[in-house]
C-alpha cells in the first residue's frame, strides 16, 4: 500500500529514467531474483493459509509429539497440534507485523530525514539529537521494558518495534537527503518559490528511491527478527499464531529436551529464509546502485547524471 505511495512521485521524467534502469538492473540480477522468488512463495503461502488449512491451526489434531509422517507432514507439537498448519498460518502474522513495522519505521525515517536535511539548522540539530539518542539506547532491553509496561497485543508489538526501529533508517536517509539537498536543482526549486512539502517529496525523495528501498528492506528484516525475539521471550501476544510464538511454545513445552526437532526447526527456518531473501534483494539493490560493488563495469547511470 504505502510502497505504492512512495513510488508515485517517480512520475517525473528524470526519476523515471533512474527507476527504469534500476528495475531492469534488479530483474537481471540473480540475487534479486532468488530473493524475490522466495518472498513471493511465502506471501502466496500466507495468503492461501485459510484455504490450505481452513480449521484453526492451534486445535489438537493428533497424538502428542508425533514424528513427521504422511498425515502430519511436519509432525505434531507436544499438545498434538499440526506443525505444518501452525507454520503456514504463522507466516500471516509474522509477515504482516514485519511489513507493517518496516513500512512504518521507513516512513518515520523519511519524514525525519527529509525534514532534517531540508530545514537544517535548529530543526536538524534537534531531530539528529533525537535520532542519535534512540540509536544509542540499547534496543532489546528497551523493547523488553516497553513491552512489559504496555498492555499485551499485536498493536503493542508493532508500536514497540517501530519505536525502537525507526532511528537507523532516519540516519541513513538524512545523510542521503543532505547530499541531494545541496544539488543545484533543489536550490533552483527553492528560488522558484516551491512549497517545502513539494520540494521534499517531489524533488528530493524520488532521487533517493533506491536508498529508501534498501532502508525499507532492512527495516522489514529487523521487524520480523525482533518480533520473533520478543515473542520468543513470551512478551508478544501469546494468543496469536506466529513464528515467534511457535518457537515460544516449542521452548516452553521442552521440544528440544525431548528431541522433537520438527516442532522447532520449521518456524526458525522460515524466519531465516525470509530474512535471507530480503537480505539478498537488499544486497542486489546495493550492487545495482553502487557501481563499485558491481562485478563487471557497465556504462553506469549514476544518480548524479540523472539528477541534472
Amino acid at each position, binding site marked *: 500500500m504505502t510502497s505504492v505511495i512512495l513510488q508515485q512521485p517517480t512520475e517525473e521524467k528524470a526519476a523515471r529514467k533512474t527507476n527504469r534502469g534500476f528495475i531492469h538492473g534488479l530483474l537481471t540480477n540473480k540475487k534479486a531474483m532468488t530473493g524475490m522468488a522466495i518472498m513471493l512463495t511465502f506471501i502466496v503461502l500466507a495468503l492461501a493459509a485459510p484455504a490450505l488449512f481452513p480449521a484453526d491451526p492451534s486445535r489438537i489434531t493428533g497424538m502428542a509429539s508425533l514424528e513427521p509422517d504422511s498425515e502430519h507432514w511436519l509432525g505434531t507439537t507436544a499438545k498434538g497440534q499440526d506443525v505444518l498448519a501452525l507454520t503456514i498460518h504463522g507466516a500471516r502474522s509474522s509477515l504482516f507485523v514485519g511489513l507493517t513495522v518496516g513500512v512504518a519505521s521507513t516512513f518515520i525515517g523519511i519524514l525525519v530525514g527529509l525534514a532534517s536535511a531540508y530545514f537544517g539548522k535548529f530543526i536538524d540539530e534537534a531531530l539528529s539529537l533525537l535520532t542519535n539518542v534512540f540509536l544509542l539506547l540499547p534496543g*532489546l532491553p528497551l523493547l523488553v521494558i516497553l513491552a512489559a509496561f504496555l498492555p499485551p497485543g499485536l498493536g503493542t508489538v508493532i508500536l514497540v518495534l517501530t519505536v525502537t526501529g525507526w532511528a537507523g533508517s532516519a540516519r541513513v536517509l538524512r545523510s542521503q537527503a543532505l547530499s541531494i539537498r545541496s544539488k543545484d536543482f533543489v536550490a533552483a526549486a527553492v528560488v522558484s518559490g516551491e512549497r517545502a512539502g513539494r520540494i521534499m517529496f517531489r524533488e528530493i525523495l524520488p532521487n533517493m528511491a533506491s536508498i529508501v528501498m534498501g532502508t525499507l528492506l532492512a527495516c522489514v528484516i529487523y521487524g520480523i527478527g525482533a518480533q520473533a525475539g520478543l515473542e520468543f521471550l513470551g512478551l508478544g501476544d501469546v494468543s496469536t499464531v506466529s513464528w515467534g510464538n511457535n518457537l515460544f511454545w516449542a521452548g516452553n513445552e521442552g521440544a*528440544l529436551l525431548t528431541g522433537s526437532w520438527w516442532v522447532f526447526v520449521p518456524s526458525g527456518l522460515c524466519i531465516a529464509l525470509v530474512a535471507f531473501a530480503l537480505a539478498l534483494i537488499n544486497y542486489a539493490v546495493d550492487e545495482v546502485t553502487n557501481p563499485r560493488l558491481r562485478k563487471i563495469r557497465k556504462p553506469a547511470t549514476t544518480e548524479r547524471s540523472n539528477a541534472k
Partner: protein
Amino acid sequence: MRFILRRLGFYLIAFWASITLNFLLPRFMPGDPVSRMFARSQDRMQPEQLDALRKLLGVDNRPIWEQYAGYLQDVLTGQMGVSITRFPTPVTEVISSQIGWTLLLGGTALVIAAVVGNLLGILAAWRRGGAIDSALPPLLVFIGSFPYFWLAMGALYLFGVVLGWFPIRHAFTDGLEPAFTSEFIGDVAAHLVLPALTIVLVSIGGWMLGMRNTMIATNSEDYITMAEAKGLRPGRIMLRYAARNAMLPSVTSFGMGLGFVVGGALLTEVVFAYPGVGYQLLNAVQGLDYPLMQGLFLTITAAVLLANFLVDILYVRLDPRVRSN
C-alpha cells in the same frame, strides 16, 4: 577537546532521556503496579517500603514535577529501591552481582567476532573474487538471517544435549566456589564456549561485509597504487596502507557493538540461562519486579553510553581530522 565535550554533552542528554523514559513509563501505564507487586510479595513488604515503592513508581499524590525531581535525585544517588523477586536485596546489589557475567560473555564474543570478521573482510577485499570473497559472504549472511535465539537453541541442542560436549546452562557448575583457581576458570571457560560461539557466528558476517566494502573503496585510492609502484610487499600494503585506512568505520561499529554486548546478549543469556543482566531483566519482567527492571535498564543504558564515549575518545586518537575541527 571541543569534540569530546560535545559528545559528553550528547551522552548526558541521552542518559537524561532514558531516566525520563523510565520515570514516565510506569506513570502512563494502565493499572497500579504497586498493588500488583504487593499482591505478589505476599505481605513480606513493610509499610514504609511500600511507601518508598509508591514514590518510585509514581503512585502518590504529589505534583508530577515534584515526583520527577525526587526521582532524578534518587537515581543520581544510586537509590533504586529494593528488588521484589529477590526481596529484600537492594536493586543495586542484584545488578552488581550480575553485570560481570554479561561483560565477560559479551566482551569475549565481541572481541573475537570483531577481530576475525575484520581480518576476513580484509582478505576478501584484497583478493576480490577469490575463495574467501565468493564463498563466505553469502554463507555468513545466510547464517546471520537465522533468528539469533533459534541458532543458540540449535547449538544448545546439538552440542549440549545430543553430543554433550559443553554444559547446557549457567555460568559455572553448581556447588563450585568462585575463586581464582585453574579449576574454576576452566569451568567458566567451558560454560562460556557455546553462548559466545553463537554470538560470534551471527555477528561476524556484519563485520566482514562492512570491512570488505570499505576496503574495496580504499583499494582504489592513489596511495595504494603508489605503494605498489614503490614495490612494497603486498602484505604490508594490505595491512598498513589499505586496511589501516579502512579501519575507522569498524571502530564506530565497535562502539555500537558494545551496545549489543550489554543489551543484545539478553537472548543468549535467556537461552543458556546465563546469569547476566539480560537474563535478570527478563526474570524481573516476568516477576513484575518494576524497581529491578528500571534499575537494570538504567544500568545497561549507562554502560552502553560509557562504552560509546570511550570509543569516541579512541576515535579522536585515531582520526586526526576530528582533532583539527
